[in-house]
């Protein structure tokens, strides 16, 4: 469904992505794990057209998309839930969700269909229904995260890019968000590319994973295998520290 071939991206002189290649099949959940600055967010932004790659190819549904503006990418069916939620704080919850369906309004899709999808988002996140008239900026971090996911779903994406949905949230809220992602996969078969610091939760949910370090993919494989990999365990899951120290 999505394939990145030899992507190289620069921030000024910083070589942020070095020959990154990865792929997602339809219906898969794939996670990118790695430390801060490894290039996880850059990969998502390269796919979304926010930081275009200097070299390499992004192919989505057999079409090259690396030169497109962010709004065109959304139109093709790739929605991103950006890092730090970035909901529209001065607007109400309902307005935020409506704007998620902006392109569908523009292409004159029936309001009933859009409204139905909003009901679906409310079913996933009942708390959004309670707060539909409230300004997004007045909600807690967890609620804003739910809103950001809901907003992305309103575009009816084929592929959902999630950037650190658990960042700065209480463990219980993180659990709820991962539960919803799991539910999404089961009910709608949405393909998901998930960037996470919380490697344990991410690998538990995902089918496959890529491990990044300083802009390079250093490992890839089925999530279950990565979870058992000694290097991943040590570096990202925080296990077996003792063994290392004693050696």
């Amino acid at each position, binding site marked *: 469904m999505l394939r990145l071939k030899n992507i190289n991206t620069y921030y000024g002189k910083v070589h942020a992505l070095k020959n990154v290649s990865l792929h997602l099949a339809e219906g898969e959940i794939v996670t990118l794990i790695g430390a801060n600055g490894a290039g996880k967010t850059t990969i998502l932004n390269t796919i979304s057209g926010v930081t275009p790659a200097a070299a390499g190819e992004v192919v989505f549904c057999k079409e090259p998309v690396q030169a497109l503006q*962010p*709004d065109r990418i959304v139109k093709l069916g790739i929605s991103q839930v950006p890092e730090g939620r970035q909901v529209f704080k001065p607007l109400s919850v309902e307005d935020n969700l*409506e*704007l998620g369906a902006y392109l569908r*309004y523009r292409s004159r899709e029936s309001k009933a269909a859009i409204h139905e999808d909003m009901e679906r988002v409310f079913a996933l996140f009942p708390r959004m229904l309670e707060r539909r008239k409230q300004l997004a*900026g*007045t909600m807690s971090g967890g609620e804003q995260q739910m809103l950001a996911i809901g907003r992305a779903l309103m575009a009816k994406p084929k592929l959902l890019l999630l950037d650190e949905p658990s960042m700065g949230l209480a463990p219980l809220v993180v659990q709820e968000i991962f539960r919803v992602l799991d539910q999404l996969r089961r009910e709608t078969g949405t393909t998901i590319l998930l960037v996470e610091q919380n490697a344990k939760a991410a690998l538990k949910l995902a089918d496959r994973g890529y491990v990044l370090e300083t802009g390079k993919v250093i490992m890839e494989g089925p999530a279950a295998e990565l979870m058992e990999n000694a290097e991943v365990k040590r570096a990202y899951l925080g296990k077996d520290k003792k063994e290392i120290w004693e050696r």
Partner: protein
Amino acid sequence: MQFDQLLQYTLSGLSTGAIYALIGIGFSIIYNATGIINFAQGEFVMLGGMLTLFFLEALKLPLWAAIPCAVAASTVAGLLFERLAIRPLRQPTPINLVIITIGGSILIRGLSMLLWGKDTHAIPPFSGDDPIAIGGATILPQHLWILAITVIIVAANRFYFYHTISGKAMRACAYNRRAAGLVGIDVRRMVLFSFIISSAMGSIAGIIVAPLTMTAYDVGVMLGLKGFCAAIIGGMSSGLATVVGGLLLGVLESLGAGLISSGYKDAIAFIILLLILFIRPQGLFGKAESERV
């Protein structure tokens, strides 16, 4: 000091203030969508008046037809300005953009002077000039036109920004351009929209005020600065705060001119501008931003 006099100054101040408010909202809309102060805003105000005159005298159109034509032509000018001067910029840093708008302003003013000369002209009032007595004061029908049209435009603006998907998208852009792009909003289109709306509003302001204050190729400078001042008082909001800012400015200016000396009229606006920038740069009603993560 008599009550009648105060009332008179306040009333005429309110109608000039309404003009400042319209111009100020134009500043705010572009600022919110793009982060730049469009110093060419005043020129669209001038174009409104001068084009109305052009359609009236050169093409012999009646007033009711000349006005929409002038608004349409000024709007096209705003659209072209964005397309030709703002969008093609390679490095759209705020300082570059602001300098471009200053350049654009000088260009538009220069062209108008070449086309229409340096004379001051008057546009006929919309419905006669028999004064109307209110209390001990009198106002002209044109004052009522100004107030009514301002109310309509502010209400239309409010409806657009709060109840249409395109208006909400514009607010989303103003708050966070990157996130707006990520939900599929074409940010460049919104920027173009903001120029269209602002130039239309500016030209209307220029038209409705022209029967009272006359118009010439260079009226845009002062009106633009006063509108900018209103927007600063309102904290660059594109809503009621700027309207209040404009009205406040108009009334203070008018009272100052009446009670102290009319020579200080413009100075008062700029003293207020400086005071606001020194003491409350977030605007009279703004609160400092607080961030929640």
